């Protein structure tokens, strides 16, 4: 049995390790597109802030890890899939035969149609190679413009600020992290960044970037312009499905999978940022490009590939974001569900905000700013659909007692 995994991110690596646990004899090959050992994009901001070196971003710290587990990691980019003959054609020639295939090719940064994004000094912040370029350009005191203040943009934001650059963040939507937090929370975040010296421009688009003598000029929809030594583009990502054209594997926003992470092609599975899988909260199939989901997908897909049928009951959308000491997070149906109650507490001065969304007496979503203790119980309560009973009334009045409510309900203190 030969398991081939396209992609050396967390989904691919977790899948390979799970496959090895399930089947000690199978051949397992990871094909990674980049010229690096498997590493984590999540860690790149910490490389930029100087907390770790490149090795610190590696998904497995033991250099012999893959070899010791009989996992072959090869640099190769998939060119085309021939599912009928269970073959992958590689971009630089050659082909790989598989028995089971996992598509875990991840996502790539989106390049909006803005003139000047191809200029030198404009970079995405996605790969280690991008990071090296940014490390080189973003020195203390330099002017840097960040295009996009969504979740990924905001993570990069902290790293850039910690490098001591003079930063402007430009977000076309009316608020920061619009797909992670509501107006109150993102307003708090914006104010926080502004207090920390970041120029945050929401509801503003970058119209054009031009090259000046020793700088880039960034013109904005507001009519103003910013100068910059470096522009970092974080305008979203899109699943890497291009190579599947004509393969018979159905794609939409990502690779379409069923409740077992199987694609429309036999013996082909998908996981991670590329997979359009079930969202726990909505029940719909969508791409959730986040680390914990990649890990869950990788493990479940591998179990199915190994013949141990394991349903994927849907992954929970959740994010955690650090902003120089201010930690925010969101879980599940953070913006509420139809007909559900909600409870919110806000202390703007203290940068504390907690909003709970309920489905009957079950927790459906959480947004939190300034809360970190035991915050994982939000996931526990949402995913177990634990009935809160009288604790719901407690939480309606005192949302901050979430951890208590969880422990109480799980302990039968009702």
């Amino acid at each position: 049995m030969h398991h081939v995994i396209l992609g050396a991110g967390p989904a691919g690596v977790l899948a390979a390790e799970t496959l090895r646990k399930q089947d000690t004899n199978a051949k397992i090959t990871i094909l990674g597109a980049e010229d690096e050992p498997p590493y984590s994009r999540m860690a790149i901001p910490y490389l930029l802030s100087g907390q770790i070196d490149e090795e610190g971003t590696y998904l497995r710290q033991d250099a012999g890890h893959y070899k010791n587990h009989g996992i072959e990691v090869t640099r190769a980019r998939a060119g085309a899939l021939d599912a009928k003959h269970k073959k992958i054609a590689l971009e630089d020639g050659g082909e790989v035969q598989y028995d089971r295939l996992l598509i875990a090719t991840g996502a790539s940064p989106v390049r909006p149609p803005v003139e000047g994004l191809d200029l030198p000094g404009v970079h995405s912040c996605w790969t280690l190679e991008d990071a090296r370029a940014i490390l080189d350009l973003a020195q203390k005191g330099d002017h840097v413009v960040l295009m996009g203040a969504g979740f990924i943009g905001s993570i990069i934001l902290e790293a850039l600020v910690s490098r001591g650059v003079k930063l402007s963040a430009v977000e076309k939507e009316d608020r920061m992290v619009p797909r992670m937090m509501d107006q109150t929370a993102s307003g708090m975040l914006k104010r926080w960044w502004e207090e920390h010296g970041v120029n945050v421009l929401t509801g503003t688009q970058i119209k054009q970037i031009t090259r000046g003598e020793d700088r880039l000029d960034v013109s904005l929809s507001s009519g103003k312009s910013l100068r910059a030594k470096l522009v970092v583009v974080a305008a979203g990502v899109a699943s890497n499905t291009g190579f599947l054209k004509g393969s018979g594997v159905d794609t939409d926003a990502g690779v379409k999978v069923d409740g077992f992470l199987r694609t429309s092609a036999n013996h082909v599975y998908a996981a991670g940022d590329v997979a359009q899988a079930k969202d726990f909260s909505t029940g719909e199939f969508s791409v959730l490009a986040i680390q914990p989901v990649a890990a869950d997908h990788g493990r479940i897909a591998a179990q199915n590939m190994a013949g141990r049928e394991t349903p994927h009951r849907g992954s929970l959308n959740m994010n955690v974001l650090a902003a120089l000491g201010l930690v925010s997070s969101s879980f599940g149906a953070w913006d509420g569900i139809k007909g559900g109650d909600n409870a919110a507490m806000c202390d703007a001065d203290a940068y504390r905000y907690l909003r709970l969304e309920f489905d009957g007496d079950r927790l459906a979503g959480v947004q939190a700013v300034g809360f970190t203790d035991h915050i994982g119980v939000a996931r526990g309560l949402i995913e177990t659909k634990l009935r809160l009973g009288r604790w719901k009334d407690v939480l309606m009045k005192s949302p901050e007692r979430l951890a208590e409510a969880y422990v109480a309900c799980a302990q039968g203190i009702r």
Partner: protein
Amino acid sequence: MQKALVIDPVKCTGCKQCELACSYVKEGEFNPAKSRIRVFDFHQDARFVPYTCTQCAEAWCQSACPVDAITTNERGVKEVHDALCVGCKVCTIACPFGTVNYNASTGKVIKCDECGGDPACVKACPTQAIVYVDVEQAGFEKMKHWAKRTDAGAQASH
């Protein structure tokens, strides 16, 4: 023989000696806010519940860690390696029990590691509400059951 922390909330009086012992061993000071075990006070229901990591077999915290900073030791305990942890906090949202916490003063996450096989909380507990016993013993099954009730279902209840 594998051992595990087994907690019997009925015996707990809420004295927090476990939190003091834990924080002393881990932080070198008495500081319940940084303890890896926490006693929840439900005195209006006449209950106190010591609460800490149950060392799941397939740990969400571990698989969610982007930099391999959480590993399983020979006793099945999930350990955080400070040298590797970047403080991204993904494990804190991934752990559905809420037992991995972020320590803002170090920029790392903290969780129970059973003190290398000799848990300080157990020694400090005056009422044997927290004991460290062979996993075969009945109490552990109860603990497992509790873990199952609160985990995300079949996906991880191995």
